[in-house]
């Protein structure tokens, strides 16, 4: 009995000005699945995440999350582009972690973690604080709860950002090159944390990364994007070791050479 996929893209087009970023993209991600998107810059992988976060809008096609339209909504029996309120409602199930962390500098670590749970989910301050403390403990930063984000290292900030996303109890977690801005020695800690989250939760994870080694042991499936399309889709062992498409082979060689 195949359940409705958690994420479905159908015929999605997206362009910025003259450049086509996604072209007739179809994509389905099952609940609990860990999918990694790889591909050269400009291949549309970050755009996929940004569309899911409603930071961009589709030019054509539809996106569904958890069986509900995200990009569109029903109004008088017709499917029309979603308004802000509808998007926000569906998007509530999605969390995102950014390359540059995007922690709020005007709040403490705790403030960052309880802001949305109290305001969006309606948790009491005490409940939200308890949840925040648990999550900070999990990411190994329990003692930084009252610290200011600016006083943390990049790796610590990124772990706080992961905890902040998890505080919303998302069904879907989007990771946008979250180790790219980190010093090399801090990357391992963040990746270790992600593996643990992957192992201990059933969150659906969509991840854009250039960490091929991480992609190999973290993902259930890897998608290779080029020119706004998925050109290869397969289990990590196959796709990353014995890619079928010459373009994938070329890309992987270039990435591995760069390190």
């Amino acid at each position: 009995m195949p359940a409705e996929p958690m994420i479905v893209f159908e015929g999605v087009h997206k362009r910025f000005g003259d450049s086509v970023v996604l072209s007739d993209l179809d994509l389905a991600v099952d609940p609990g699945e860990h999918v990694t998107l790889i591909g050269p810059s400009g291949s549309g992988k970050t755009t996929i995440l940004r569309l899911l976060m409603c930071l961009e809008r589709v030019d054509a096609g539809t996106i569904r999350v958890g069986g509900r339209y995200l990009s569109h909504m029903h109004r008088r029996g017709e499917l029309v582009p979603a308004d802000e309120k509808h998007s926000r409602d569906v998007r509530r199930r999605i969390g995102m972690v950014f390359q540059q962390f995007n922690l709020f500098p005007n709040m403490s670590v705790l403030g960052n973690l309880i802001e949305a749970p109290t305001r969006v989910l309606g948790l009491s301050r005490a409940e939200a604080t308890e949840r925040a403390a648990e999550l900070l403990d999990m990411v190994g930063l329990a003692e930084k709860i009252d610290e200011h984000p600016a006083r943390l290292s990049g790796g610590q900030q990124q772990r706080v950002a992961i905890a902040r996303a998890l505080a919303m109890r998302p069904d879907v977690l989007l990771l946008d090159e979250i180790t790219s801005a980190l010093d090399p020695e801090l990357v391992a800690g963040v990746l270790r944390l992600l593996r643990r989250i992957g192992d201990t939760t059933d969150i659906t994870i969509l991840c854009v990364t250039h960490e091929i080694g991480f992609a190999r042991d973290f993902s259930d499936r890897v998608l290779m994007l080029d020119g706004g399309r998925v050109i290869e889709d397969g289990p990590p062992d196959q796709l990353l070791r014995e890619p079928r498409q010459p373009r994938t082979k070329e890309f992987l060689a270039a990435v591995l050479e760069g390190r």
Partner: protein
Amino acid sequence: MLDSLPLILSFLMAGVPPTVLATVGGIALTVVLSAVAGLALVSRHRAVRAVSRVYVEFFRGTSEVVQLFWIFFVLPALVGYQIIPLGAGILVLGLNHGAYGAEIVRGAVRAVPRAQHEGAVALSLSPWDRMRRVVLPQAVVEMLPPFTNLFIQLLKSTALLSLVVVDEVVRRGQLLVPNLGVGEKLTIYLVELVIYLVLALLITAGMRLLERRAAARVGRVPATGVAT
């Protein structure tokens, strides 16, 4: 010249309370109008932006003196109600400087990195919460230094109120001047300069305090401006 100093001083000092009152009232109105009009300038709704834009361009683009005359001389003739001179003065100072302040607010809100906005979107915060809880507190830090300038300009503009016979520093000086010699005139204008300078320094000191507190709240060290 020096014998007349105490007399001149006490006569001019009596003008300080109206000057201060006009400044404080003007600043209060400026802050409110800057916030409302500035946020309206970054509204998603075109009509809201348009209304605010008209306000800003009108009050920024017409003479403060003429605005004062309108509110003091023309408006009463139209509505049959004479607003007290100090009230008219505060109204004009606020309306005028609020137009400049709106641009400061708009610029500072725009200057908050897009990433902060996106971080707030990713947490499903409502547009109002995104502005109020994430963007504005960071924008305020950027706004304070230009607002210091604006408030000092407002203080100096209170001298215009002498034109509608508010009994402030400059007006009191003008009352003395006609009957005095060069030496006394020099003293009067010197004292006026010093009074404005002292008041301006008070504004600067107060704003510095606010700047430091605001910078500390976003984790910055204001002295160097470098994030730690």
